[in-house]
């Protein structure tokens, strides 16, 4: 459903990604791994239309979305839950969720609100509270819940485990599997290679602005070279 071909991207004069190919098929969890600063967020921001790629193509559900604006990309159902959550601090939990369906999924707003709060009972308890007053873990739930409100066809999760306690990280990965079990395709951008590869079907390793390795998650996790470098084993 997502086909990225030869994507080159960066900021101003600086080229961060140079010729990245990535695919996500319907119903998959695909992990994109790489160390800090390798361009994972650059990839995301170009997929979501926040920046225009220097070159290459991005196709989503058969349509060319290279360089399309974020409004259209969300409208098509490619939704990103960004690194650092980016929830609206001055809006209540409920209002954050409502805005999740600002562009897409508005017809089923009430039903989706029920569904999200069933998945995250903690959010229901904090419904009227300003998002700024939530803990980091709760804000992460809210960010994912807000993404779910738009009935995504593909959800990009950028570093969802970042800054969470080990127990919450486990919960987060369980949730990712659960959402995928309900049929949602997920592109998981992570530094946490061990758990990402456990959850994902396939994975890509990005190095020096290009895909250095790719394949089935289990194979990647078993690769001795990779284990030494990313898994610390």
């Amino acid at each position, binding site marked *: 459903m997502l086909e990225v071909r030869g994507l080159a991207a960066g900021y101003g004069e600086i080229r961060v990604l140079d010729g990245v190919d990535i695919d996500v098929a319907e119903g998959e969890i695909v992990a994109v791994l790489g160390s800090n600063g390798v361009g994972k967020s650059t990839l995301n921001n170009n997929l*979501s239309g*926040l920046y225009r790629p220097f070159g290459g193509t991005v196709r989503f559900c058969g349509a060319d979305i290279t360089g399309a604006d*974020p*409004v259209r*990309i*969300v*409208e098509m159902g490619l*939704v*990103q*839950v*960004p690194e650092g*959550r*980016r*929830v*609206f*601090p*001055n*809006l209540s939990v409920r*209002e954050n969720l*409502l*805005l*999740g369906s*600002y*562009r*897409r999924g508005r017809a089923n707003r009430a039903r989706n609100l029920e569904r999200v709060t069933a998945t995250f009972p903690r959010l229901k308890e904090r419904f009227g509270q300003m998002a700024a007053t939530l803990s980091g873990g709760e804000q992460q739930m809210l960010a994912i819940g*807000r993404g779910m409100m*738009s009935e995504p066809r593909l959800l990009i999760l950028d570093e969802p485990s970042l800054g969470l306690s080990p127990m919450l990280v486990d919960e987060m990965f369980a949730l990712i599997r659960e959402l995928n079990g309900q049929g949602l395709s997920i592109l998981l951008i992570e530094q946490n290679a061990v758990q990402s590869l456990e959850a994902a079907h396939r994975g890509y390793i990005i190095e020096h602005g290009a895909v250095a390795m790719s394949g089935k998650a289990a194979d990647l996790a078993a690769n001795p070279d990779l284990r030494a470098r990313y898994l610390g084993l």
Partner: protein
Amino acid sequence: MDATILGAAVINGLLLGGSYALVAVGLTLIYGVLHIINFAHGSMLMLAMYGVYFLLVKAQVDPYAAIPLMVVVMYAAGYGMYRALIGRFSHGKDENILLITLGLSIVLENIALFFFTGDSRNITVSYSDRMIELGPSLVPLPKLVSFGASLLLCAALAWFIARTDTGRAIRAVAKERHGARLVGIDVEKILAVSYGIGIACLGAAACLLVPMFYVAPTVGHLFVIVAFTIVVLGGMGSFLGALVGALLIGLTESLSGLFLGEALGQIGISLIFILILLFRPTGLFGGGR
């Protein structure tokens, strides 16, 4: 001091504050979302006042009846100005927006001076001198109407910002643009809408002011300096702050006019401004970011 005179001054001050409220609410809304002081605020108010003036003189449209029209026209003017000039030339930098609005104010004022001359103009409507008995004092009807309508419109705007999707999007864009883009909010459009609403407030304010105030190319300064003080007093970007601030500033102006003499009424405002900056720079309702 006679209690009747004091009571009258208090009522007068609150009514005066009511007429400042809309101007201040527009200013604080634009500040809250765009993070800049809209230097063109006064000139836009001045243009709106000329609009109301000419509607009455040339087309016999009563100022109060002109409110819906002026709100729509000024909204469109603000929205268009943002789209055509401010958004396009700011290149995403707040300082640039500041300079553009400052430049706009100079241009607009001089255009007004060229076409309308520097003469101040007054209008008379049948109800200009009608007095209403309010407790111990007699108040001019236009002041009372201005107060009531102004508060009503502020309440309607507050409801819109609190309860509608566009209102939520405005608040979301104010604090978290990146997140707003990712839920598919067209951020540039929301910025233009916010600027438009801020300017639309001036359209309504102009209709309420013209029956009791003169119109001249520099009339905007008077209101904007006061409105700016109100916004700082209430807390930059705070809606409720702007409303409460407006009433307090109106009171201050009226009471210092009473005690220091009419000509010195605005000294109290400047004094309050300095005191807030010294002791509570975030204002009464400011979040302190």
